[in-house]
């Protein structure tokens, strides 16, 4: 395989990472966040496999008949196996959380969920709700003292 397509592969891997990370910071939908994470991790795995690849080398599997040819580095492949499974495990857990959050707050919008969460925390602590983003700045800066019952 030519060097140019190696560069293309590198670009592809990093492109996946860029797209995934971009989606991770851009989107506010929990489900979409999980997707973005999956895409970015796929890119990372591709990169890691690339780290062990040599053009013209064979897959690291010995066919009994054939003589042992030059092979690609097997260690990164083993690592990638691990990281793929890890990624799926985290993805499943995140989806479970999203389901619960949706069931509790009836929304998948991160901003809304975050607001509800802050409100719950303050309510449980018995502290007055924090000054909202829309309150005049000076009120936010002044900050409230601790709650006195």
């Amino acid at each position, binding site marked *: 395989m030519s060097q140019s397509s190696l560069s293309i592969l590198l670009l592809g891997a990093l492109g996946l990472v860029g797209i995934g990370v971009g989606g*991770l*910071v851009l989107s506010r939908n929990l489900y979409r966040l999980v997707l973005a994470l999956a895409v970015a991790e796929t890119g990372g795995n591709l990169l890691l496999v690339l780290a062990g690849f040599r053009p013209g080398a064979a897959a690291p599997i010995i066919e009994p008949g054939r003589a042992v040819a030059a092979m690609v580095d097997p260690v990164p492949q083993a690592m990638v196996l691990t990281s793929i499974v890890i990624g799926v495990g985290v993805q499943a857990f995140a989806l479970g959380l999203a389901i619960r959050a949706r069931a509790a707050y009836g929304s998948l919008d*991160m*901003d809304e969920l975050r607001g509800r969460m802050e409100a719950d925390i303050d309510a449980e602590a018995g502290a007055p709700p924090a000054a909202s983003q829309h309150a005049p700045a000076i009120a936010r*800066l002044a*900050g409230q003292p601790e709650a006195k019952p």
Partner: protein
Amino acid sequence: MTALDTVLALSTLAALTAFLFGNARSYAWLAGILLTGQIVLLAGMDLPTSASLDFTIFGQTVGWQLDGFGRFFALITVGAALASVSYMGGEWGERYAAEGKSRRWLHGSLAANVMAMLLLLASKDLIAFFIGWELTSWAGFLLMAQGTDRALRAALRYVPYAMAGAMAVLGGLVLTLAWTGTLDLDGLASAMPDLGNARLAILLVLFGTGFAIKMGLLPFHLWQTPAYAEAPGAGTAFLGAISSRMGLFGLGLLLVKMITLSRLADLSLVDGLFNARDVLAWIAALTIVLPTFTALKQNDARYLLAWHGIGQSGYMLLGLVVGDATGSAGGLLHVFNHATYQAALVLSVFAVMHRTGTADLNSLGGLVTRMPLTFLVMLMGIIGLAGLPPMNGFVSKWLVYRSLMMNGMPLLFLMTVLGTLGTILSVYKLIHNTFLGQLRAEHEQIREAPWSMTVPMLVLVGLGFLTGAAPGLALRWVAQAQAALGLPVMSYTLGGIESARGSLDMLWVVGVLFAGFGIGAILFYGVGNRSKRIHQLDNYAGGHFLSADVRYHYSDNFYAGLMHRIGPLYRGSFVWLESALASATDLTATLMQAWYRQAVPALALLAAVVLGLGWVIWR
């Protein structure tokens, strides 16, 4: 087991027993015995005495050793504690317990203070010093926080000051270690003067700030008044008498022993415009004047005295910084003198509070007929505070004045005189509003304070009078302190000082004074006595008669005319400074918290990574 070990063991024992049995009615006796034992041991101790406990940690040896300087302060500490404990032992303590407040904690925190201060005063190296310093701060906090929520709030206001001071000292400590390689005080005494000017200035600022905060020097004085005034009576007496002097102790070690005054004088700041010594002297002078005139405005006797406590510490520092034999002797002697009459005054004020239930100078008056002994105590006390003969306050202040004149510092001298003027005015307000004028109707049934309270007060003022008439008694300890610091030792006599350029013999002064009183009395009574006793209420003012049901006492808005003149000078700048600092911190904190409340933390992370990689790549 050296004498110092015994003293420390006794103080520890006192603290333990206080926390165990402090609630018992008769615990004060045990505490008194333990404290007396410490006084005896301290007085009889040969100097320097080192403790047998010491250990090495992270390459530094930590140990304790008491020299003349420390012993001088230690004696005052234990004495003040003894006075407070005996005051607590009687009716006052009963009332305190009856109000549902914990005598255990009061006794305990008092004993803890004594122990901590002894550890501090006996420290042999900076680590031991810092340990003692912190223990003193937090034991002081404990004592301040006793009793009421007002006291707790005042103590909480003390926390940032105390911590800032401690951290300044700690910073100085580590820098000292980094620069000189030693933390032993004697080793530093030889190593520190060799440091360059810049480093010495840094150390001076760090240590100086820490000590100044403890001492209540301007501009770090705001915490002290409420914290000391709101504490329970015995605690207030102890705190006002000695607690903040630990700052002076530290400054003495730093300025005189380690840096030495001559090196201080060479240390020129703002390229030679003035040297560090002048700066310190002027800080001291300002500390004399401003708090004193703030005291003039107080309407609560406790606050008034607390403000004076700050002002008087200025005299001590000033004398120490002037640094010749008489000046330093005056400064150090003033520590002892101030302890005697400050404690007496505070106790008398609390005696009045004990009977009348208030220390508000606008709601008292005419108590002289009801509480004559307390009146006597306060009278002698304010004479000492104002620095007039025959009390001991006169001696120390005279020494300071004299050294200022001799060293050609007329401006500073004028400042001290101004301070004394303010002192006289405000203490007159104190005694007038409390004891003179006409008795209020609600105070008709007031009785004299119980013996358990009057005796300690009388002992204290008696001590003040004695050392006023025969300063030599106290100057012994002072001379040892001077020697330990490496200052020129003042040659003293029983009556005062013997010097070619004007000596002072208080025995003569007091003798002449009382002779004068006697002659006056003989003339007055002997040669046709025309006086006639009238009742306290049988007088008239402004031309029209007052019937006995209208009590007339001119106390509200005291010194109206004077205040009309100097009132506009009170700007409250320091309060403004403090609140500005607080709100600035608040603002920064809110901004910092905004980071943790951001909507998309991942975005910030990403941005950071990108910037970081950019830094790495184009570095």
